[in-house]
């Protein structure tokens, strides 16, 4: 093990800096605010820092390391030119309080992204401000809340979510002050229209749902569901986590939704960075536009007497602040760095984004088929069921390992750990909650047929391994199975020299 804090070089070890413009003694720090002891940071030279973090990186699995079939997370390849672009001074060194004349290039890119997202989703306007999917959900729900207040519908206090929804949906609505009504899925994992009809009423503010749902299944009755909610006076909110499955094939607008968030870190290849940053812009239909957080990029034609800019010979870009805006959800204008990367990703596909979707869905169905046929040929087809019956899935699919658990006490988590020993990141497990012993697989469009074939073979191999092996897995990873119960019961949350001894 290498610990950062065991590096304790001589006093003064660390990054060498130019001299200050005035000496420390001349600073007028109020006596009571003078720091009494130096921060207890470790003391490392640059070679030690570089080696430490490089070593840590070798103990981490990313998409670059291997196949990452983590359902619901859309772990697609992150094109490297995007990283080059995001470090250009024109994005790295600009400040949101600069005048519009300093920001024409950025405004142009924001405008292009807003227009593209609105076009692909069938919405009327987009704000890029929310910095994560969950924040997008919260922002849109806030817009709906203010809309209802404006039209005298304050009595709408409930938000409906299916029991298979992402956890952020109910959490975001609750943060805005709503009561959550969870409706059960039908037997086949799909939305239960009868349950929805029972749930809606004049207290319904909105329904939050993703389509395809978290089982990877397209909800065929979605238009009718929208109708039911609208008839009750509620709004339809589209959780865009699964947008990679439908882009160019259908849109939330066509399905009857009023608001939607996009996960740029899923669909548009902003790297996940070990947990973030993401970006969660939202799009809305006309009646909600005035409530969006601003500023939003707009453009006007150059007047005859106005000179061309470096950006355009026809347009001048500017900020626009919606009149009844809910205000801000982040201090500045969103995760611009993520938006720039996603713009570069979008430009690669342009009007052929549909091809991306097709390949994501092709890969998911192909892998599902390969796992099934491999299991059949190995005689272990009875170790799992489909999470939901379907002729075709969209970008991901679920399997229930309940039969395997029943037969030999091997659960979804054991299989997940077993896959780690075969060099794969594990799929999502135990989500959605409606599928017992659920394994949720999303290959994305950037995996080759060979990778999918090999994964299917290895997945089936893991199903055949004996229970003892799988309970002890993983064996080949930097550490063995980590004791999460121990971690929660013996909270050790920071470096502490005494505790380490």
């Amino acid at each position, binding site marked *: 093990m290498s610990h950062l804090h065991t590096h304790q070089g001589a006093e003064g070890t660390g990054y060498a800096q130019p001299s200050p413009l005035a000496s420390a003694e001349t600073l007028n720090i109020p006596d009571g605010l003078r720091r009494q002891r130096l921060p207890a940071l470790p003391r490392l030279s640059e070679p030690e*820092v570089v080696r430490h973090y490089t070593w840590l990186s070798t103990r981490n699995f990313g998409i670059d390391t291997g196949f990452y079939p983590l359902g619901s997370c859309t772990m697609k390849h992150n094109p490297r030119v995007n*990283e080059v672009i995001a470090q250009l001074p024109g994005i790295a060194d600009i400040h949101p309080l600069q005048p519009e004349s300093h920001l024409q290039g950025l405004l142009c890119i924001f405008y292009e992204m807003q227009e593209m997202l609105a076009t692909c989703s069938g919405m009327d306007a987009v704000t890029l401000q929310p910095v994560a999917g969950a924040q997008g959900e919260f922002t849109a729900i806030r817009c709906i809340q203010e809309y209802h207040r404006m039209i005298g519908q304050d009595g709408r206090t409930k938000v409906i979510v299916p029991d298979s929804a992402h956890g*952020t949906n109910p959490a975001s609505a609750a943060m805005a002050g709503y009561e959550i009504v969870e409706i059960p899925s039908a037997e086949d994992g799909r939305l239960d229209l009868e349950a929805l009809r029972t749930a809606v009423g004049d207290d319904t503010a909105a329904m939050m749902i993703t389509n395809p749902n978290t089982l990877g299944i397209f909800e065929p009755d979605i238009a009718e569901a929208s109708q039911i909610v609208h008839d009750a006076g509620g709004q339809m909110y589209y959780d865009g986590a699964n947008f990679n499955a439908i882009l160019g094939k259908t849109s939330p607008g066509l399905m009857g939704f009023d608001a939607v968030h996009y996960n740029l870190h899923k669909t548009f290849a902003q790297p996940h960075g070990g947990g973030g940053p993401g970006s969660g812009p939202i799009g809305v239909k006309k009646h909600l536009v005035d409530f969006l957080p601003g500023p939003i990029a707009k453009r006007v034609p150059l007047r005859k007497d106005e000179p061309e800019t470096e950006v355009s010979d026809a347009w001048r870009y500017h900020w626009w602040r919606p009149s009844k805006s809910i205000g801000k959800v982040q201090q500045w204008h969103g995760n611009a760095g993520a938006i720039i990367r996603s713009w570069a990703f979008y430009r690669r596909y342009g009007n052929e984004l549909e091809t991306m979707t097709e390949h994501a869905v092709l890969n998911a169905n192909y892998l599902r088929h390969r796992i099934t046929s491999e299991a059949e040929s190995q005689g272990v087809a009875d170790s799992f069921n489909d999470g939901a019956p379907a002729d075709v899935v969209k970008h991901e699919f679920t399997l229930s390992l309940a039969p395997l658990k029943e037969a030999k006490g091997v659960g979804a988590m054991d299989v997940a750990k077993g896959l780690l020993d075969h060099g794969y990141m594990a799929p999502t497990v135990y989500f959605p909650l409606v599928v017992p012993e659920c394994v949720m697989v999303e290959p994305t469009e*950037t995996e080759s047929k060979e990778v999918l074939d090999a994964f299917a073979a290895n997945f089936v191999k893991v199903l055949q391994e004996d229970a003892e092996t799988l309970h002890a897995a993983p064996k080949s990873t930097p*550490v063995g199975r980590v004791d999460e119960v121990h971690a929660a019961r013996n909270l050790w949350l920071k470096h502490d020299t005494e505790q380490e001894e």
Partner: protein
Amino acid sequence: MVDQLPNLGRESEMLSAMGMESMDELFADIPDEVRMNATLPLPGPQSEEEILADARRLLGANVALSQRVSFLGAGLYRNFVPSAVFQLINRGEFLTAYTPYQPEVSQGMLQAMWEFQSMVADLVGLPISNVSVYDGSTAAAEALTCAVRVHNRKALQKDTVWVSGLIPPDRMSVIHNYTQGGGIEVKTLKHNEDGTLDLASAARASGSCGVYVEQPNPFGILDEGLTGLKEILGENTALIVGVQPTSLGIIEAPGEYGADIVVGEGQPLGSPLTFGGPVYGIFACKEAYLRQMPGRIVGRSVDSKGREAYCLTLSTREQHIRRHRATSNICTNETLIALMGAMHMALLGPEGIRDLAIRNMAACQSLKAQIEDTPRLSLLHPDAAHYNEFAISLPGKAADALRYLDEYGIIGGLDLSTWYSEMTNQLLVCATDQTSSEDIDSLVRHLGHWAKEVKG
């Protein structure tokens, strides 16, 4: 596009393995009534080279602060992030990983985040830090809702928090959005003429759930009075202090003067300005707040063989487990930017972060001294100590001064009427470790010249 899709051109082979003939069959489950049938009305695909050329042209048209003489801060601060940070952060094992839900193959990021927690906790003087929230504004907002969850039962002022009246409107707006759903009332604390907190009136906040103040405050003032605030508020009211983290190299850690929660905009440690995002929010607290805090936390544990190992812990607070009863809806956070912060701190070391703070404060003080000596310019808070920034009273409109300076290639700072409409003649200027004495001379010369000429 061709270079991104490995199975392009092999569709029929894969389809036929499934007994299908066309891609359309994969989408047969989407009812006709909601099908999009036309090609997306967007421009055609581009190659990497074309994208890069467009990006260079468009982003090149922006005016980067590094290309000008700049005194704009107001919450984001120009800094120098050592080159090693950018090299290391682009390692694909960090860059392209998801949240470390499978700890056995995520030890690298988990340990790095545990080390981040350790360094942040020590810097702010509290026992616990999470692995980041979105930014400084959401950190402040989440701290206030956290304080309500912890203190509301015993609070004399139920569902009430107090916030410094100097907090800029955009940050206040975020606080409003995060607190309104819980029915939390946000009251504002008064300040004295000299820019410090009015401690006498702050006593009114005692018995509420929490109080949010900033050190340095939005006018850059280091307010010594805040060290006595916890005593005024009492045990049952959370003291929440927002910090500029580099200042803590020389300024007392708020934990040492009674802060219960410390939050802040992490950007000055590790991250370029990046137009304000992605940056990262610092969130640290005392143990009493641990189970009500937002965001992810890494714990040190053991593996099946008793070896040291790390994993996410206390997840039962989070949305994926607790759903609508979660402490926050946050899922994706700013881990990679926090990792940049960790690397920056590791490179600096104890003396390095002290020296960085000295450079920031020294630049500010040098600028202040020269402004003070310039005819027709005066300091709004002449008796205060400042870190990074301070407000100048001008003989004319700040907006005019900024336009004038822009003609000379100087980004002069923030027209304070952007925040407070009545402050039309006040300019907030910021100096950091990246400010040179030539920059200062240039601003003082041109602003002095403008002040001399302007009618006022």
